[in-house]
């Protein structure tokens, strides 16, 4: 039985810029289940990071503001609780790892110090020795060799992959329910990427946390996720389990994304054909076309899509498969 731990309902986030307000996230819904990974996929500016930061209430305010929606974590609306309560949740129940391991650690403290800080914040009852032991245990858990020595090292002495492991150790020190991973492997090279993904999967099996995995790399999604939400211009355009998304994409955008993954012929090592791309660019948030936001880049767009109507609503076209398109590829 799947246990639901987090539900995001109709989340809307607005940014006030010099050129006027922009709604970066326009009503996003998704759920996180215990021990499962949900992937949020999209191009830059599609609102995937903003959605994830909203869960932690980390949107810088000003200029950002969550203008509507609910984020329900175990029966509590995270948008309604006090900042003090939120602080008790951050790093304790919901933890986050960032894209840039090179800059996400404080350069003047040892890595041990930074893992220990999480314990100091959320488990102040532990004795000094217990904290020290737990810190070393965490570093060992994330696969850092000779952690007894590494605890006393500074971030600049570690490679990017090792630093990301430290970030994961910090995030998991209090055994959170939910781990938000905001493009955790983007800044790493491919071999290290594979190691980090493997590590996250292993830790998920051991600790049973739900993961929100944000990425623009569909290959990583196929590897990591159970459920996938595809975002475009601040909206979820398709949502389904990972097999359905890859075998039967119903939204032209998802189809385009999957087709633009390079495929290699394993015998010759060459690509069979020219790599497909999605034509055009993401429209500016200031000049969205009336109707469907994807119309300009969509090969299937009709006058129906370009009409002065609103964006297509997200509908359940098959059981568990949600699509927001006027002309789904059924």
């Amino acid at each position, binding site marked *: 039985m799947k246990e639901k731990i987090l539900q995001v309902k109709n989340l809307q986030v607005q940014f006030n810029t010099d050129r006027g307000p922009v709604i970066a996230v326009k009503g996003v819904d998704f759920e996180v289940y215990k021990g499962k990974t949900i992937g949020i996929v999209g191009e830059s500016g599609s609102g995937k990071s903003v959605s994830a930061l909203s869960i932690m209430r980390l949107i810088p305010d000003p200029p950002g503001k969550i203008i509507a929606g609910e984020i329900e974590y175990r029966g509590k609306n995270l948008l309604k609780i006090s900042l003090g309560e939120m602080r008790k949740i*951050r*790093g*304790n129940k919901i933890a986050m790892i960032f894209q840039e391991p090179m*800059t996400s650690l404080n*350069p003047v403290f040892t890595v041990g110090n930074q893992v220990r*800080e999480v314990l100091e914040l*959320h488990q102040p009852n532990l004795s000094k020795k217990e904290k020290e032991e737990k810190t070393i245990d965490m570093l060992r858990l994330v696969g850092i060799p000779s952690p007894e*020595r590494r605890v006393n090292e500074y971030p600049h002495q570690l490679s990017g992959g090792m630093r990301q492991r430290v970030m994961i150790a910090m*995030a998991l020190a209090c055994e959170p329910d939910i781990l938000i991973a905001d493009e955790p492997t983007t800044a790493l090279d491919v071999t290290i990427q594979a190691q980090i993904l493997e590590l996250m999967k292993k830790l998920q099996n051991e600790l049973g946390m739900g993961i929100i995995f944000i990425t623009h790399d569909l290959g990583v999604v196929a590897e990591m996720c159970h459920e996938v939400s595809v975002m475009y211009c601040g909206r979820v355009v398709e949502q389904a389990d990972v097999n359905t998304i890859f075998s039967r994409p119903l939204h032209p955008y998802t189809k385009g994304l999957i087709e633009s993954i390079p495929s290699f012929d394993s015998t010759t090592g060459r690509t069979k054909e020219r790599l497909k791309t999605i034509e055009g660019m993401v429209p500016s948030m200031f000049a969205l076309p009336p109707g469907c936001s994807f119309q300009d880049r969509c090969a299937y767009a009709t006058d129906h899509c370009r009409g002065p109507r609103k964006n297509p609503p997200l509908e359940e076209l098959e059981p568990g498969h949600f699509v927001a398109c006027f002309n789904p590829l059924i």
Partner: protein
Amino acid sequence: MEIKETKPKSLWMHAFATLMKDKMAVISFIIILIYVIAALLSATGILAGDWAKEVGPSYGPPTTDNIFGLDIFGRSVLYKTIKGSEVAMSVGLVTALFSIIIGVVFGAVAGYFGGFIDELIVWFYTTFTSIPNIMLLMVITFILGKGLLAVYLALGLTSWVSLSRLIRAEVMRHKDRDYVAAATAIGGGNFRKLFIHILPNVTHVIIINFSLQFQTAIKSEVILSYLGLGVQGMPSWGTMIDDSKLELARGVWWQLAAATFAMMIVVLAFNILGDSLRDALDPKLKGK
């Protein structure tokens, strides 16, 4: 093959090692140390305790017994100079600490919180600096009455603005860094983020400023004492220079020379040390 284990070095260990390689910095540091020891010994009365005693004729020239000569009352200028170092070092230390505390708190709070708080603090120190410093110094000493306490307060209250500006800019630069976002994500509050995460990253600015503030304070104290607003009842380099105004016409140059020399050396040492500290702590700014 044996792999040599190196103990990881902190930023401060690195900086210290760099500093120790810099000969001028080491010499400057030793000079400052000598001044500090002299000041401490003088304060506890071990050295120059009987500076007020008449040891020879009025305006006695430098001899082997009294290498800096004697003043109008036949007191040893050497002892007076040492006693003066006590005033100079205490003024330097207290003023520098005082101005750093005010400057760091205002600068950090303004830079971190931004918005209205920032505007208020910036408005305050801009207004504050529009008052000529020397006027402010005189007003404060007149209000508090002459004496060491007035000098501490007057110099401390007038010297924090430049550090405040620096700290504000540095904190602004750091507050949007990823490690601060990461600190929020593990549940850190504003106080923790500002004072535990950001401030240690800007400490080098504070340390460099401390060494520069220290010598500025020494010079300012000399000026105040020269103007008759400084320390009363004990010699300071400023009052010694003030005294020698009348002596120079008679060809008595040693009091002026001793005080100026004592001040020049310590100020120079602080300047060189400040420069070296900057090089050691902020490699991007290396002037060499």
